[in-house]
């Protein structure tokens, strides 16, 4: 490894669950020894093996790895969409059991409800929580303004482009004002130009709102552009093997990610790490 590498690996493995790490960062989400195994009729898949991670308050952290390394599984477990076999997750010191009202999820396949217009889709989470109609409309409208889509509030979602639909998906997740926003390869189905535009938009939203974001992707440049830290996953069994700091100034541009020497070093490091993880067996 070259000597001018400014990337620091903060190590892995079990960590203490104290609220503040020695470096002074406050932990919002503590993930401790999470394991998950799927049993299908054909084979047994060890999706997650003792994954531990402290997510810091207000940070943007990406989870990167090849397909099938368990990163989406971890995100689904965090949200309560799936259960873990063992291990604990605590949010602000409270142990999570099932779905948390303080986190929301942005899906790769967006999943807007086609029978509701854009505004009512964004208001869905507030509706479930019993927020009165007028208030939830106002708050949904606010969320739509954040993603600059207030003008299409009354339109059916399927008439929008893919990029606009995912912005609605982001607004829907933000409308409940989550402490932690979980994003599962949200731009995976979009074309390059739209993806870059949305990356900038999410970076701006994050700076503006200060919401903690856990972001799953297999796009290394996307992770470098957006993140404070990047967690690297290895498959078979799925493990979190490395957490890297992204020491790039903000606000960033896509030029930084392509040309900044630190970004180049970081990309090389991540790529090497992921390449070593190519053959997921058993």
């Amino acid at each position, binding site marked *: 490894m070259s000597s001018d590498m400014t990337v620091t690996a903060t190590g892995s493995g079990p960590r203490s669950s104290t609220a503040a790490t020695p470096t002074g960062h406050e932990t919002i989400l503590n993930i401790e020894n999470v394991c998950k195994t799927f049993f299908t009729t054909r084979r047994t898949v060890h999706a997650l093996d003792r994954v531990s991670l402290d997510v810091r308050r207000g940070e943007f952290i990406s989870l990167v790895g090849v397909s099938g390394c368990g990163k989406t599984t971890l995100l689904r477990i965090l949200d309560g969409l799936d259960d873990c076999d063992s291990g604990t997750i605590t949010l602000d010191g409270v142990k999570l059991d099932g779905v948390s009202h303080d986190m929301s999820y942005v899906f790769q396949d967006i999943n807007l409800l086609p029978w509701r217009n854009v505004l009512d889709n964004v208001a869905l989470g507030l509706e479930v929580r019993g927020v009165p109609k007028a208030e939830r409309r106002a708050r949904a409208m606010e969320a739509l303004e954040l993603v600059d889509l207030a003008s299409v509030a009354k339109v059916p979602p399927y*008439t929008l482009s893919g990029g606009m639909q995912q912005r609605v998906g982001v607004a829907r997740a933000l409308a409940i004002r989550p402490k932690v926003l979980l994003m599962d390869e949200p731009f995976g189905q979009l074309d390059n130009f739209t993806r870059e535009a949305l990356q900038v938009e999410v970076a701006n939203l994050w700076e503006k709102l200060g919401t903690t974001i856990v972001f799953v992707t297999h796009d290394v440049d996307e992770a470098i552009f957006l993140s404070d830290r990047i967690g690297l996953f290895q498959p078979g069994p799925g493990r979190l093997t490395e957490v890297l700091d992204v020491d790039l100034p903000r606000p960033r541009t896509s030029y930084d990610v392509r040309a900044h020497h630190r970004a180049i070093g970081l990309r090389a490091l991540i790529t090497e790490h992921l390449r070593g993880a190519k053959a997921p067996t058993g």
Partner: protein
Amino acid sequence: MTTPQGSTAGTDAFGASVAALGIPGLDEGKDQLETTFANAFETKGLLTADMTGPAGLRRARQHQTAIAGILAILAGIGIWQATALFMNPIFISTPSLVAPALWDLLVSGPLPADFLRSLLEMVGGVFFATIVGVGIGLLMGRIRILERALEPLVAFGNATPSIALLPVMEVWFGFGETARVAFIMTIAVWPLIVNTHAGVRAVRGRLADVGTTFGMSHWQQIRHVYLPGTLPYIFVGARISLAVGAVGMILGGQEIGGSGLGGLVTVLGARSETASLVAAILTTTVLALFLFWALRQLQARVFPWIAATSAGRRESR
């Protein structure tokens, strides 16, 4: 929104997305392309005044389809009439004989009453089939143990040839309309169970996550996610149910007490009154077409979003 001449929701949204992306000129380009097409039509003299512009192009295309369809029907009628030159009209009669026979059946015959009776039995049977079928399909999709228990039974019932159930209906309900409605329901319920169940399974893998992430209760999930999410599949099932229900309607009318259009067809066939028979058969076709049309109208007007789903897209042409 600054969409030039956006006439439908679709073009409005397209304009909106173009405006939101801030790409100038794209919208104009689209109009230009369509104007070029329209001009190409115009030089061939195929266009009338209202068929220019983007909306006009679509209208012109619909116009062509309609003309082709009408020509085909007229040709069919012509060939049918021509068969009289070399065939005894006792076999398939001719349009010139069927038309007055239809008129007689309508004005002084039993056709209006039989039509109404069959229509009501059909609507009743498919209605109950929908209630039962959607209910069972939803329960199967939501309760794992019921899914396991009922799946083989549904496969069994679905595979049973429907006509074999006719005598059972007679034994259970006698020879009146109860038995006929029950028969239609019994054969129309299976496509609804199977399709509703398939719909719930499709929702389970995708949209259900949305309900879960927002912490919906079991009933909120059913009301806000599963029931609407399954609707495109329910409509697919309902369309198949109408088709098999129409067979059940005629069969029930013929076999159980001889009533409605089924009974009428049997009687006219027995008397070898071919012209009236053909008129009665055409009436059953009209009845079935009317019900298909009504279902399609219901979907398009009350649930326009269904056409945008993958299940809905598979169905529509």
